[in-house]
């Protein structure tokens, strides 16, 4: 399972970085989402991978999974979801105003 999770994080990060470098709004937004998925799984894995184990104290259980990464990842998911919404609205606004979906600033400096 470790190999699967690790390679999933790696592949998604690589794909995300590649998409962000595409310089157009849609691939960049998708790339950002990819990256945030990757980092969420990474955070989740930072408390060690454990299957079928409760995070909260319970009677008669000796093996637990670390609850803190779950709390962290929950926060990170909420934040990245909100941020994605913001960047989608913003890029839509920029697209409507500027008429193209390039992310670079044309001729910056001489305006």
């Amino acid at each position, binding site marked *: 399972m470790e190999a699967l999770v690790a390679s999933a994080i790696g592949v998604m990060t690589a794909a995300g970085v590649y998409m*962000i470098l595409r310089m157009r*709004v849609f691939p*960049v937004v998708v790339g*950002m989402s990819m*990256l*945030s998925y990757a*980092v*969420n799984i*990474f*955070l989740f*894995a*930072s*408390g*060690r991978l454990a299957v079928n184990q409760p*995070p*909260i*104290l319970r*009677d008669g259980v000796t093996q637990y999974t670390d*609850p*803190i*990464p*779950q*709390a*962290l990842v*929950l*926060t*990170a998911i909420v*934040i*990245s979801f*909100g*941020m994605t919404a*913001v*960047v989608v609205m*913003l*890029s839509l*606004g*920029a697209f409507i*105003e*500027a008429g193209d979906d390039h*992310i*670079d*600033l044309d001729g*910056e*400096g*001489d*305006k």
Partner: protein
Amino acid sequence: MLGFFDHLIIAPVVLPAFFAPLMVLWMRFDTVSQRVFSVAAMVFMLGIAITLAVDAASGVPEVYRLGNWEAPFGIVLVLDKLSALMLVLTAVLGLAVTLYAIGSGWDRRGWHFHSLLQFQMMGINGAFLTGDAFNLFVFFEVLLIASYGLMIHAGGRDRLKAGVQYVVYNLAGSTLFLFALGTIYATMGTLNMADLADKVAQMPANETGLLRVGAVLLMLVFAVKAALVPFQFWLPATYTNAPGVVAALFAIMTKVGVYGIIRVYTLIFTPDSPVGTLAAEVLIPVAGITLIVGMVGILGARDMGRAVAYSVIGSVGTMMLALAQFTPAGTAAGLYYLVHSTLVAAALFLIVDMVRERRKGGLALVAEAPFRQNGLLAALFFAGAIGMAGMPPLSGFLGKLMIMDATRGQWWIWAAILITSLIAILGFARAGSTVFWKSYGTQVEEGDAPLPRPPEAPSDALAYVAAVGLLLALAAWTVFAAPATRYMQGVAQQLYTPDVYISAVMDGAYARAEAAAEAAAHHDEPDHPADDAHVAPAGDDASGH
């Protein structure tokens, strides 16, 4: 039991969090009440920040446990001299920016300016106060999401395009932050800064490999925020295209990154630890290059706004040269310069914005007919540029002097600071003389009347109060340089005795947690089995994040 004043530590976070929704929900269409409440909130915040600074001067960091959870389990806010200093600086800047936004009418050119401003203050104050690394991330996001709104305030094609770039850059930075925190948590099993500091110090040097990765990732994040080379690319486009008043507020944003570097690399990865020495080695050359890129950028800029934006990069480089020495003298000098450069950058952005409002061709460095209040603005820009370039008599000169004193013996730092100062003087002289002086030589054409005051701006006077107020604060910073330096030395001394901070947060934490659990168990005994109470101190983190 906590008294009223013990709860004051959280006020800089709670107060804006209260005012911002109030403004959105209750006075959405009422600009006048928004303005009144915004100024009131800023004055109130300044008062609180000063009270906290007086409080923090005792030298013992004060700890505020959110929900009264003990330190490594719950989130703590910690008020030490550095946080208090940054809070006061933020509040002063916030007040000036609010006054200017009202005076220039910027707050009426889009929606929700004042509430976004309050949320921004909440994020910045929280970032300065928190004692938990993940909470620092959360407050970074709060201040960023507010800054996205402020950055595109009033809209427009170029601003929106620059805004998208700014947002994407910072989202990538936030992702990096999470990777860094994940790495650190995986190694150390905690994200409380004091607890981390304690545990990092006990770690054998040959096991710090993964931790070093985390530490460097964290430094990259702060470098993005502080606009250190090679992460400075977002800054000029953002600051030039943002509304002038927002650019002035953003003067504190780069300092949030600088604060992060100071905090993390004096407390957690201390300069004498195997992880910390790496930071100093990387930071000094990076700071030098940042300084050169920034100051050369002033000379190369084709408009006034960009010149000021590049000078912000240069000033970050200057202060990092001092801070990256990781000596008490270097830190004291760097902090003195940090306050100076925040005030002067904000003042310059406000002045430049006033020029943009009045000039037909915006900020482009081409000769053009004189505009409204040409002479007055020229004088203000002159004062600001002197401060930013580091010429006497303003505090920039004193700050650079102290930095050079603290880096005695490193000739190339002296050379970099002195030569780039000269370049900055040249750059500002060129920008100022083209915009302000060459105007008198140009022919005034028919129908080429200077721009009138925009109808939504209630008064020029208020805008001038803000800009001149910041310059006066700069003058005060110069006049009271001796007590200011003493305070900075106190801050530095506290930073380099991290044990005080660690013990303030951690001492007795476990004992108190056990006592609380016991008390709870005792209290619950009549109707519950005792082992229910054990749950209390452990699984808490979700509540706070």
